C-alpha cells in the first residue's frame, strides 16, 4: 500500500515535470529521428539487408523506438545522481515508505518519460511512409513493452549510479552501455547476419527480445515468439529491480 502510493507519486512527479518543460523530450528525439530519416532512407535504397520482405525503414523503426527509450531510461540514473548530490534522495529515504518502492517508482517514472518519447518519434516514422499495423491494441501492447523494457534499463542505471558517484563517470558508462546494446541486437539487422560471437551476445541482450516483440506487434504481425519475448523482458526487469533495490542503500552512504 505504502509502496504503491509512492510509485504513483513518482509517476505523477514525472508527468508534472513534463507538463512544465518538454524541451528534453524534443531534443532527445533528434537522434532517433536522424536514424530513421538519414540512415534508414539511405540503407533502404541499397536493399542489402534481408528483412523478410519488410521495407528496411519499417524494419528498423521498432529498434530505433527502443533505442531512444532505452537512452532515456539509462540516463535517468543521472537524475538520481543529481538527486543524491542535492538532498532529495536523503529526504525520500527518510519518508515512511520501503526503499524498493523508491527504486521502482523511479523506474516507472522513467517509463513514463520513455513513452512520451516514443509518441513523438512514431508520427515521424508514419510521415516517412512506415506502415504500422493499424490495430490500436497492438500499438498499446507495444507501448507496454516499451514501458517494461525502459523500467529494466532504468533499474540498470540506478545500479550504475550507486557505484559511479560523479556525473561525468556516469555519462561515460551510459554511452558505453547503450551503443553496444543497440548494435548487438536485431534493431538494425537480423541476428543471423551477425558474426557468431555477436550472435551469442545478442541472445543475452534484452533489447533483442524487446525489438522482436515490438516489431511483431507494430510491423510484421509475426507474434510466434511473443511469449518468449515478454518472458525474457519480465525476467530481465525482475532481476534488475532486485539488484537496484539492493544496491540503492549504497547510493547515499
Amino acid at each position: 500500500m505504502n509502496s504503491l502510493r509512492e510509485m504513483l507519486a513518482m509517476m505523477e512527479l514525472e508527468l508534472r515535470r513534463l507538463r512544465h518543460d518538454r524541451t528534453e523530450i524534443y531534443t532527445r528525439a533528434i537522434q532517433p529521428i536522424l536514424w530513421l530519416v538519414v540512415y534508414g532512407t539511405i540503407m533502404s535504397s541499397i536493399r542489402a539487408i534481408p528483412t523478410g520482405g519488410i521495407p528496411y525503414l519499417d524494419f528498423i523503426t521498432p529498434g530505433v523506438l527502443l533505442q531512444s527509450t532505452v537512452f532515456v531510461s539509462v540516463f535517468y540514473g543521472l537524475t538520481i545522481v543529481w538527486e543524491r548530490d542535492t538532498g532529495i534522495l536523503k529526504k525520500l529515504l527518510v519518508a515512511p515508505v520501503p526503499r524498493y518502492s523508491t527504486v521502482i517508482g523511479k523506474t516507472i517514472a522513467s517509463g513514463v518519460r520513455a513513452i512520451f518519447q516514443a509518441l513523438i518519434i512514431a508520427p515521424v516514422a508514419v510521415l516517412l511512409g512506415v506502415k504500422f499495423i493499424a490495430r490500436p491494441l497492438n500499438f498499446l501492447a507495444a507501448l507496454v513493452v516499451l514501458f517494461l523494457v525502459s523500467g529494466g534499463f532504468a533499474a540498470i542505471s540506478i545500479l550504475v549510479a550507486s557505484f559511479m558517484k560523479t556525473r561525468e563517470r556516469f555519462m561515460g558508462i551510459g554511452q558505453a552501455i547503450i551503443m553496444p546494446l543497440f548494435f548487438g541486437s536485431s534493431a538494425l539487422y537480423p541476428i543471423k547476419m551477425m558474426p557468431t560471437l555477436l550472435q551469442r551476445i545478442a541472445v543475452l541482450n534484452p533489447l533483442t527480445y524487446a525489438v522482436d516483440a515490438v516489431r511483431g506487434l507494430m510491423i510484421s504481425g509475426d507474434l510466434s515468439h511473443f511469449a518468449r519475448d515478454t518472458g525474457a523482458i519480465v525476467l530481465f526487469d525482475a532481476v534488475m529491480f532486485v539488484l537496484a533495490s539492493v544496491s540503492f542503500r549504497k547510493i547515499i552512504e
Partner: protein
Amino acid sequence: MDVKRPEENLVDIRGLVKVYPPATRALDGIDLGIKAGRIFALLGPNGAGKTTLVRVLTTQLRPTAGQASIFGLDVVRKAAEVRALIGYVPQEMSVWTDITGYENLLIYAKIYGLPAAVRKKQVWEALESMGLAGFAKALVKTYSGGMIRRLEVACALLIKPKIMFLDEPTIGLDPAARKAVWEKILTFKKEFGTTVFFNTHYMDEADLYSDEIAIIDRGRLVKLGTAEELKHSIKRDVIRVGLGTGSSAGEKVLARLRALRSVTGAGLADSELTVAVGDAESALPAVIDVLRDEGLPIIRISAEKPTLDDVFLAYAGSSLQSGPDLREVRSVRRQIRQG
C-alpha cells in the same frame, strides 16, 4: 540493568558510535538525551560528526555501535515507525526545482499518504505557515534561497511531525532570510509543540533560538547546557570601568587589581579600566572596593559575558581548521548557484 524511563527523553542516545570504513570515527561514543518540546542545537566544527548524528537519528545510517531511540523506538529496529514521526530537512537543497512549490508539497503529501480529503488543505496550510502561499504556483527554480529553505521546512512540517531534524537550516542565506526562516519555525513550534533538533555553524542562532546546546568535537560530546550555562562555564567575563578624565589611576591600582584572586588580568587605556575576571558577579565587589580605596571616580561600569563564539572556541577550538572543508564549500556553492 538500570530502570528505563522512555517518557523522560524524547530522543535517547547511548554510546553511539559510527565508523566510516576504513577508520574514520565520525561518532565516538555519544550519550545524549533530548526532552520533548525543546529546541536543541548541535554545534561543532566541520567534520565533528553533526551531520552523521542527524543521519543516524533519521534512520539513514546504521550506527556501528550503541543505540538511539526516538519516543522509545529504536532508530534501527523500528526505523519504519520512526520515519512516520519525524520531519527532516537535509543540509543540501531537497526540493524539485522544475515543478511548482505547491506541486512539491503535493507529491510529498502523497508519498506520506495524507488522506485525499485533507491533503490540499494541509498543503495550503503548510505553505501559508511558511509565508509561501503567494508563490505556490511558481516554479521553484524562480524562488530565492530563503524561499527554497522555507519550502523545505514546509515540506517537513506537512505531516505535523513530533520532532523536526534540521541540518544547517539557514546555511548560505542572508541575515534577513535567516531571520524569516527561524520566525516561521518558532511559530510552528509554538503552535504544535514540536521538538526541534538542529545543526548549525551560526553561533547567534544557537544563542537566540535554542533551549539547550550540545557542542561536539571529533565525534564526542564536549559540553551540554543552555546558552547561559555554557557562557558561564568558561569563566571569561570582562569588567569595564569608565574613570573620570584626569583621574590619577596608574600602575599602582593595576597592580592591586591583579593581586586579587578573582582577577586574571587588568589594563588601562584612555581612562577606561579593563579587568578580566573569571565570573563578573562574584569579582565585582572586590574590584569596586579597590577602586574606592584608591579614591578613583567611577563614571560607569559594565560587565561583559563571553559570547557563544568564545564558548565554542574554548571547547572545540583545538580542532578548528583554517577554513571549511572542500566538500562543504562545494555543496554551499552549488546551493548558491541553484538557489
